[in-house]
């Protein structure tokens, strides 16, 4: 599971043009640190992971799809939900997988941690 969490985090933070630096998991809570790719600054984060392994794999693939196809602007998906579903189906996803994965990704919230305190969040939206 740890590998899948790592893979997901790498692809999720790829959306934000950041690289996963450190990550540790304790009681399903993930604590970690990312480095921004455009400067030397970093950001701590935490995430309470309730996602099943199979859903995590699909979320990972969806993040990669969004990044590879340049469909993100900051944290906003630049096409409509129905258009994204259509494109995923054209790329070989089943419609239900596409729908579920989009809903799963939209429901995720990874908290930014500043000086040990949770402040803002990483999430994506349409």
């Amino acid at each position, binding site marked *: 599971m740890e590998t899948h969490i790592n893979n997901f985090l790498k692809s999720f933070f790829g959306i934000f043009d950041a690289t996963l630096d450190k990550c540790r998991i304790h009681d399903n809570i993930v604590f970690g640190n990312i480095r921004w790719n455009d400067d030397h600054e970093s950001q701590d984060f935490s995430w309470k992971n309730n996602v099943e392994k199979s859903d995590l794999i699909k979320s990972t693939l969806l993040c990669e799809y969004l990044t590879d196809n340049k469909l993100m602007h*900051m*944290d906003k998906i630049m096409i409509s939900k129905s258009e994204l579903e259509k494109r995923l189906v054209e790329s070989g996803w089943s419609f239900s997988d596409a729908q579920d994965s989009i809903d799963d990704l*939209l*429901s*995720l*919230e990874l908290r*930014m941690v500043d000086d040990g305190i949770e402040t803002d*969040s990483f*999430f994506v939206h*349409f």
Partner: protein
Amino acid sequence: MGKPTQQREHDAEIVARLGNFALYGSLINWSPSFVLPAGARFVGPSQAGRMASSGVSRVQANSLKEYKSLVQRLSKEDSELTLVELKMFQTLTERFGGKLRYDLNPVHGRFLKPHVQVEGLGKSLESRHVWLGPGVR
């Protein structure tokens, strides 16, 4: 429910007047005594009224470093900007070479609250959400 809103609007108006005055002061290299010093503690919206009455706006930064720190503080969920504060934040952002991306009507996501994000000043700032108050549309 109506009274706090009226109080908030009243506070925002005072913040606007004095805040713009402070901003003007910084543009002509004059620091009025009520401008927050570097590293001053952030004061949230619940304290905005007290700050306004003492002439202090929370939307201020005199360097890019202070600006980054400001964005970090404003990205806390309860730091809802008033319309006037948003205008001040936009002016400040442009002063440092960035611009604001408005997302006043986010759809299909965990957070459907209106917010702005800073573009052009690095990914660490771009990832932050500066939340807008209920009256800002």
